């Protein structure tokens, strides 16, 4: 099977008048169709930078990122991006927030609009369509943000610590929620997180990065022996703890 995304030998440095900081160093990995990848690493190691390179917002100084064999462009329509916070705009209703991506891409077609209707309905946001973001719970806000991203029908989702702003309990529920939605919509994804449990609970493979400049330390395939795996049920799998210890040990070398 051909990979959906190929990250090939990517390196990047930040430049400031006081000097140069290497952020990424020779990073390579593949993502297969339908696969969920998690990227963990010490904080400040360059995880978000990596996502910015993958979605084309930053151009690598060396190496390349290919999707289905062609290089990615700035704001590549094949990719959806979820940021650390939901960033719903307070001056828009939930419905108008969800439309933002289509407005920006000038794609307010009847077909896309009916797709949004379907998702609003499926994910229980129908009755909040004219509400302001501040009237919604943290979980509902994340759902709205996800629908805003999915409305563009991306082939790959990039999740930049999308649950980190939530309190612990909401976070478990929301990651379970989002994980199920992505599975249902059959979307491959790359999740960047500093939370090892979250990575194991959601991903098919976990990429461990070294400290800055980030390079790939190890890639761990996750095989949890449970039926109908969801992010929440994964946490009860017998092997969960040993994966946790494995990744913990690996990460601790770079702490």
């Amino acid at each position, binding site marked *: 099977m051909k990979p959906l995304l190929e990250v090939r030998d990517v390196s990047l440095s930040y430049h400031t008048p006081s000097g140069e900081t290497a952020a990424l160093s020779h990073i390579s990995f593949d993502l297969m169709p339908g696969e969920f990848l998690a990227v963990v690493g010490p904080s400040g190691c360059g995880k978000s930078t990596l996502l910015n390179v993958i*979605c084309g*917002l930053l151009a690598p100084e060396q190496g390349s990122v290919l999707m289905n064999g062609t290089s990615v462009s*700035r*704001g*590549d*329509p094949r*990719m*959806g*991006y979820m*940021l*650390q*916070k939901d*960033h719903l*705009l*307070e*001056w828009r209703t939930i419905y108008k927030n969800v439309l*933002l*991506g289509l*407005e*920006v*891409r000038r794609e307010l077609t009847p077909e896309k609009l009916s797709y949004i209707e379907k998702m609003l309905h499926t994910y229980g946001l129908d009755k909040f369509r004219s509400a302001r973001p501040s009237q919604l719970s943290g979980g509902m806000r994340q759902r709205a943000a996800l629908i*805003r991203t999915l409305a*563009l029908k991306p082939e790959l989702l990039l999740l930049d610590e999308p649950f980190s702003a939530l309190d612990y309990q909401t976070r478990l529920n929301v990651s379970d929620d989002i994980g199920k939605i992505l599975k249902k919509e059959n979307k491959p994804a790359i999740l960047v997180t500093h939370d090892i449990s979250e990575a194991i609970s959601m991903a098919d493979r976990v990429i461990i990065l070294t400290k800055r400049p980030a390079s790939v330390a190890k890639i761990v395939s996750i095989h949890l022996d449970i039926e109908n795996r969801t992010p929440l049920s994964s946490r009860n799998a017998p092997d969960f703890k040993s994966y946790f210890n494995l990744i913990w040990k690996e990460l601790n070398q770079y702490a």
Partner: protein
Amino acid sequence: MPDLSSAQTKYLSRLKREKYFVNISRLVLFAGFLALWEVSARIGWIDSFIFSSPSAIGLNFLDMCRNQSLFTHIGITLTETLLSFFFVVILGIGTAVLLWMFPKLAKILEPYLVVLNSLPKSALAPLLIVWLGANVRTIIVAGMSVAIFGSVINLYTGFQDADPDKRKLIATLGGNKKDELTKIVLPSSVPLILSIMKVNIGLCLVGVIIGEFIGARQGLGYLIIYSSQTFKLTTVLMAILVLCIIAMGLYSILNLIEKRYTKQR
């Protein structure tokens, strides 16, 4: 309404009494000042030719209302102020948008804007008269000159403060800089724009009065300067009072618009 505890009732009534006291004190202060002024003028403690008196000012006001000349002056000044305010809003936002779209241009122009802003604008008025002539256009430009540079600087700074993550959101959705402007920067700057405009309306009035001092045949600024040169100090004081009321009125209108907007949000 639920039953209030006695402590809460006490607290509320104390709050009410305090408010009442402040309002009454303000009124008493004002009335006392007017009374003292009137009495001192009548019994000769102060020279009523120079300092006038509340009753003389009142009569003068009624007189000028009756022959309608006051309304002409007010109308002219108000029109000029509103026009220069309108142009400041358009030009201020337009220039700030331009600077935001082209950061290099902003960097180049920054020191010039700072100098123009710190310049005492009244110093420009005599030049404007010579350059543009003694007409309404000059006075509108004088009004604008007081407010425009500060608004551009403040608006541009505000635009730059727009949440970088929200701008990134637009980029990840495939938007360009224009989308960032129309979807994020401008909508999030509405409260800032309103509060800057609240200050600007007063500044425009100041600029218009400066302009009228030098190059006008009508308007409250002209009335003040003409009356002072002919030693009609009662009229000068009356015009100043009318100006106070206009300034307060304009500010309240914008304040109301701002409150409406915040409430809506």
